[in-house]
């Protein structure tokens, strides 16, 4: 295998010295982490390397020598460098050399033991790969997703050579702590040798976050203890709590806040990103909520809204009345059964009358309620939107009731018709065997059955029309609520921090690497530049999406159509905690 030497770009123009790094024998690669300059005392170098090895669990060692001089190394220097190979025994021993100001490098590899097969000297023995140490240290590799049909036994135990390189650099932070201004026995050159990078604000925030997190975590645990107390488990509060989407959203946000302020440190980078994304999501939510609040409370818009609400509800009720009058007449030219039509129409009209009275009863309090609801926007835009969705549900409660009545009537009719249709043909539904069996009926049974069948059949158009109209209205309301839920879901699950990171610091989220061949001369080792290939946005969204409330439509379109046809009630949104069918 060709020997690959990974060399940091920050060390390309430093003075001569020793190469310090890690040798990976499985991939025949040498990862150079730093350059140790002359003069040094070998004992101290070995002590430092032993310390680093213990602290970081990375097998750092002296890999070879680095020579950056005016012209080709003289004989004496050459022998001195080779002599160093005896002081720091390492197999194989690398000797990199570069002319000051020159572009081309030379590299020699000496094996202590004679290699099994004689390898050709010169160019195809070594490959030099330059990498940006800072970017590789900070970035995180996202390997392509493994196909689900791979057996668990065939694990990728042989991690790719690049993952090992990234891992080595990331874990050797201990080595990078000593910089040029550090007074120590050895002088190292690496990406932090100009001075360790740090920020005062970050350090202050880190110190302050401990006690602040403790305080907020205790407050939040108090709030969740109050929420979990026995009073809320009793009916009807538990029923309301499960049906109202506001409670669901508040619970969700409480969970998020508990996660953010938990005093446990994030174990791996995935948890850290999740925390950061949650913080960004909460901040965006609160910012949008405060904007909405300032817009609502400015220029007495709440007053206007409250004044407009009752007339709108009145208008909707009036439109419904017109619709029912139309249905009671001859809608779309169809001829209805007069008696049934009148009964159903009057029944629904009475309900609308009740509803209008109820709205008029509530009208003095509407402004106060709206004002307090507007205040809830400071908890976040998602809470305000959930409240809006709940208010819509409450205001269109009469449409929901009509839908339920129409659906139940229609459902009964359909079941009756199907059962009597079977009787008409001389068959019967066998409940024990769950199939249709033939059956001999008596004459009077057949007579009554056929009579009922005819009655139900001729009353079908009327019921079907009422059912159709109210189902359409209900679906309209459900669609509006669905849009609001979609928006809430979007705000809840958007990983803003990851997207911002991908936009501003693309090297932090790496999908892989890319290589570029640098200027090449025959007889010299091949030089490649390794750059980070950033993760595409679609994969960022997919990997770092926050888990949402989980309100997804539980029926497919086919199942929905089937339910509509047979008159079964549809509950489009699966609430968390519902029993699975």
């Amino acid at each position, binding site marked *: 295998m060709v020997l690959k030497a990974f060399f940091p770009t920050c060390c390309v123009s430093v003075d001569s010295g020793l190469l310090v790094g890690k040798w990976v024998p499985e*991939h025949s690669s040498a990862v150079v982490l730093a350059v140790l300059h002359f003069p040094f005392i070998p004992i101290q170098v070995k002590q430092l390397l032993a310390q680093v090895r213990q602290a970081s669990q990375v097998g750092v060692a002296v890999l070879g020598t680095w020579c950056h001089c005016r012209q080709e190394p003289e004989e004496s220097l050459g022998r001195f460098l080779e002599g160093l190979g005896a002081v720091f025994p390492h197999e194989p021993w690398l000797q990199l050399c570069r002319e000051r100001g020159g572009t081309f490098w030379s590299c020699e590899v000496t094996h202590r033991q004679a290699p099994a097969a004689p390898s050709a000297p010169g160019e195809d023995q070594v490959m030099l790969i330059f990498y940006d140490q800072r970017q590789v240290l900070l970035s995180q590799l996202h390997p392509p997703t493994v196909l689900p049909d791979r057996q668990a036994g065939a694990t990728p135990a042989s991690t*790719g050579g690049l993952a090992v390189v990234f891992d080595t650099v990331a874990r050797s932070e201990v080595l990078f702590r000593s910089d040029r201004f550090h007074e120590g026995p050895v002088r190292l050159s690496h990406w932090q040798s100009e001075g360790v990078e740090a920020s005062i604000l970050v350090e202050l925030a880190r110190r302050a976050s401990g006690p602040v997190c403790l305080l907020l975590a205790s407050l939040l645990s108090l709030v969740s203890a109050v929420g979990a107390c026995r009073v809320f488990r009793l009916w009807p509060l538990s029923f309301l709590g499960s049906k109202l989407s506001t409670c669901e959203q508040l619970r969700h946000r409480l969970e998020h806040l508990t996660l953010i302020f938990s005093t446990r440190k994030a174990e791996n980078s995935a948890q850290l990103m999740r925390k950061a994304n949650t913080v960004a999501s909460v901040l965006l939510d609160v910012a949008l909520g405060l904007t909405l609040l300032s817009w609502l409370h400015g220029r007495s818009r709440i007053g206007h809204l409250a004044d407009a609400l009752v007339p709108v509800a009145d208008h909707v009720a009036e439109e419904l009345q017109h619709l029912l009058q139309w249905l009671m007449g001859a809608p779309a030219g169809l001829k209805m059964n007069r008696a049934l039509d009148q009964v159903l129409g009057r029944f629904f009209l009475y309900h609308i009358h009740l509803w209008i009275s109820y709205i008029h009863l509530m009208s003095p309090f509407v402004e106060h309620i709206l004002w307090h609801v507007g205040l809830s926007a400071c908890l976040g835009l998602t809470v305000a939107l959930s409240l809006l969705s709940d208010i819509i549900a409450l205001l269109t409660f009469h449409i929901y009731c009509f839908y339920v009545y129409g659906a139940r009537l229609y459902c009964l009719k359909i079941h009756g018709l199907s059962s009597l249709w079977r009787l008409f043909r001389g068959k019967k539904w066998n409940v024990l065997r769950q199939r249709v069996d033939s059956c001999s009926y008596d004459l009077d049974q057949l007579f009554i059955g056929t009579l009922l069948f005819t009655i139900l059949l001729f009353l079908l158009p009327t019921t079907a029309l009422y059912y159709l109209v109210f189902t359409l209205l209900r679906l309209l309301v459900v669609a509006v609520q669905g849009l609001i839920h979609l928006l809430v879901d979007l705000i809840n699950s958007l990983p803003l921090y990851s997207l911002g990171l991908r936009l501003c610091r693309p090297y932090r989220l790496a999908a892989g690497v890319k*290589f570029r*061949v640098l200027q090449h001369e025959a007889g010299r080792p*091949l030089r490649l530049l390794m750059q980070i*290939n950033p993760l595409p946005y679609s994969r960022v969204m997919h990997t770092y999406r926050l888990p949402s409330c989980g309100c997804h439509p539980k029926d497919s379109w086919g199942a929905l159509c089937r339910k509509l046809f047979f008159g079964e009630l549809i509950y489009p949104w699966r609430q968390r905690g519902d029993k699975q069918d």
Partner: protein
Amino acid sequence: MEDERSFSDICGGRLALQRRYYSPSCREFCLSCPRLSLRSLTAVTCTVWLAAYGLFTLCENSMILSAAIFITLLGLLGYLHFVKIDQETLLIIDSLGIQMTSSYASGKESTTFIEMGKVKDIVINEAIYMVSI
């Protein structure tokens, strides 16, 4: 070492294959596709604008013309950035991996690098020659 050969694709456009030999452990193959032809661009633009003008004479709304210009520009930008490939490169590095780069007409480059450990086997796909009788 560089070596260039030219071929033609099924529509008659000119394809150029460049083979570079950097070292015994590294080779590069570079295929350049035919450029966007002025004729097809003019044809598409004229069709879209004539259709928009026809709609305009029906509806007397000048927004249709601005919308048509907007759509043509966006469509052209989208085509150049997402669809029209200028050049495709295959770089093979011994014991490291295989890298495939596609560069689009707008300058965007999309790179995939596959490590040698993940490569299971090599499949040679025969080329198809079209003949007209």
